[in-house]
């Protein structure tokens, strides 16, 4: 069914369709509309979940760990400071291999306080062991939530997933979205079948500590699961297409890259604006294209390399700042490493931090900078303030 919905409400609808047993979340801008809508669904009997109205993000994710350990499908959502407050639990949930799915309405981190969008929050949990997916629009945000459960709960993976979408830009935007019915979702997503579960009939100790004789192997297993997630994600994306018609079988998406001389690499909602900018620049005779990265963890290095083959000038749009790093942005390093060819120029552009609006003309300027070889810098600074 096609409907026009606010991004947050569409995501809440996706959550309703996957029927989590337990929802535990703490409100934070710009994630609030999601959890308010879910609370409303529970109150109205539209969703039969235990909704734990916790006192903090720290407890939100902790309760998810408990509920997941007890064998339930669980859901949470957060942003920015909330995610940072959860950071310790994030590492723990992944190490305990709990297939929790959490929405991240991407938002800048303090200080200065900013409620507006960038991707610093999820990217700084890069190494926490969570799968990280980034959505471009409301439809993709909706779809990736359903796909996320299938991948997280796959016994070859058993890792938690962040479904990231830009705060406000996606969460607060109304746009048309295709919503499948419950039967279709059930046909795609089997019930959760836990490998380990707290159960008095079959006692088990979970989350034990590991001495130096064991610790490394557990971390190795996590990394292996993340490596396996690459193909499980693609398979789940392929099956998604078969069930719902929308194709997520690739972890990267090329836009007009075939004959491109310049490529912009980006994640999230900015990809839409970049596509429009690419069209304009193409009509002006500029051979430019976009590589959209949908999965940041696991990082689809091979796919990135193949998609960008033959392109000599690559610029990475970074909605994050790795303060003190040479390239400045965290994604650029991954792309540069994936390409692995020093004759190819890969530059980072830190842009759109803290909700700074990005227009088509900004993307054009950035493309000029990529062509000129000026990068690894902040882009779009107000020079008069510096």
């Amino acid at each position, binding site marked *: 069914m096609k409907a026009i919905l606010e991004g947050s409400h569409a995501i809440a609808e996706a959550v309703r369709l996957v029927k989590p047993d337990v929802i535990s979340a703490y409100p934070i801008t710009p994630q609030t509309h999601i959890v308010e809508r879910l609370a409303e669904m529970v109150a109205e009997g539209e969703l039969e979940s235990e909704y734990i109205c916790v006192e903090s993000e720290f407890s939100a994710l902790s309760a998810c*760990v*408990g509920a997941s350990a*007890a064998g*339930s499908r669980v859901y949470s959502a957060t942003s920015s400071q909330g995610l940072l407050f959860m950071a310790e639990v994030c590492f723990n949930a992944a190490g305990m291999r709990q297939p929790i799915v959490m929405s991240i309405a991407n938002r800048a981190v303090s200080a200065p306080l900013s409620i507006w969008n960038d991707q610093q929050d999820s990217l700084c949990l890069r190494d926490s062991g969570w799968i990280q997916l980034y959505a471009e629009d409301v439809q993709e945000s909706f779809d990736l939530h359903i796909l996320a459960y299938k991948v997280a709960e796959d016994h070859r993976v058993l890792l938690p997933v962040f479904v990231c979408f830009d705060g406000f830009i996606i969460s607060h935007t109304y746009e048309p979205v295709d919503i499948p019915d419950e039967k279709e979702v059930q046909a795609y997503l089997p019930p959760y079948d836990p490998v380990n579960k707290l159960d008095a009939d079959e*006692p088990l100790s979970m989350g034990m500590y590991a001495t130096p004789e*064991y610790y490394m192997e557990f971390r190795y297993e996590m990394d292996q699961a993340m490596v396996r997630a690459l193909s499980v994600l693609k398979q789940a994306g392929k099956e998604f297409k078969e069930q719902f018609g929308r194709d997520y079988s690739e972890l990267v998406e090329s836009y007009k890259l075939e004959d491109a001389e310049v490529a912009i690499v980006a994640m999230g909602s900015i990809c839409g604006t970049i596509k429009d900018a690419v069209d304009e620049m193409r009509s002006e005779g500029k051979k430019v294209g976009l590589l959209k990265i949908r999965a940041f963890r696991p990082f689809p290095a091979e796919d990135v390399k193949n998609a960008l083959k033959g392109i000599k000038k690559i610029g990475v749009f970074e909605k994050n700042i790795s303060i003190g790093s040479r390239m400045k942005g965290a994604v650029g390093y991954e792309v540069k490493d994936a390409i692995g060819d020093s004759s190819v120029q890969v530059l980072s552009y830190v842009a759109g931090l803290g909700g700074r609006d990005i227009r088509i003309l900004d993307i054009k300027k950035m493309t000029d900078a990529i062509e000129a070889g000026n990068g690894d810098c902040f882009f779009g600074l107000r020079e008069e303030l510096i």
Partner: protein
Amino acid sequence: MADRTLELVDCGHRACGGCGPAFAARLILKGAGERSIVCASTGCMEVFSTPYPQTAWKVPWVHSLFQNTAAVASGVEAALKRQGRDEHVLCICGDGATFDIGVLCISGAFERGHNITYICYDNEAYMNTGIQRSGATPFDASTTTSPAGKKSFGNTRPKKDMPQILAAHGAPYVATCSIAYPNDVIKKVERAVNIDGPCYIQIHTPCCTGWGFDGSKTIELGKLAIETGLWVNYEIVNGKVEKAKKVKRKPVEDYLRVQKRFAHLFKPSVNAEEIAKIQAIADANAEKYGIDLKF
């Protein structure tokens, strides 16, 4: 009725010989029974009982972090409710996890009214990391972060009144007990797990290593705490204090003198002034809970 022969904590755990908390773990599960799920915090008990893969727990047990046990238990309870299951959900945490770092999560869980029994094994300092003070450390106890010295008599603050804090959350049942009275521990745990709503039990668990006494005297120390009035066993049922254990009180020196953590009060000479302050704490307890036996 609790099966007192039930052994749900296995041999082979790595607690110190004479460990109060290890004894407490056995008693707790005798009271709670095998249909229990234990949520543990990081701490001494977690470390001595679960180095991978040698778990000592015969009931389902889960550890996540130091400070989130009450929140983890909230999630376990919610999941059981949704699945229509009936196991008792227990938290077993030390005083560091309970009095200090975990207060946010505990307060949240109790305010929300989850059907959990939160048990604090109170050995009055952070023993896992080497005897640092906690909010449960008694006045004048010397710990590695509240050491007695030329200008210090040890910990400068009295114990936080955690049972009252949780009673104030509306907990239907709050109790204190001591491993020195094992049957009382079993009885109170059994009572708590069968009450709907968040219950709190604080068990005094002398720690031979942290307090500085011989491991054979763990129970003797627990008894002395009660007999001097420095620890009181009582219940708070729906906000009202009940059944405080009455004693013929001994002077606090009897308890202090046998522990290294109070040794500075007796060396080089008896510090009557400081001991009087501790005696005053015991006297206030006696007055507050009415524990003095009348002859």
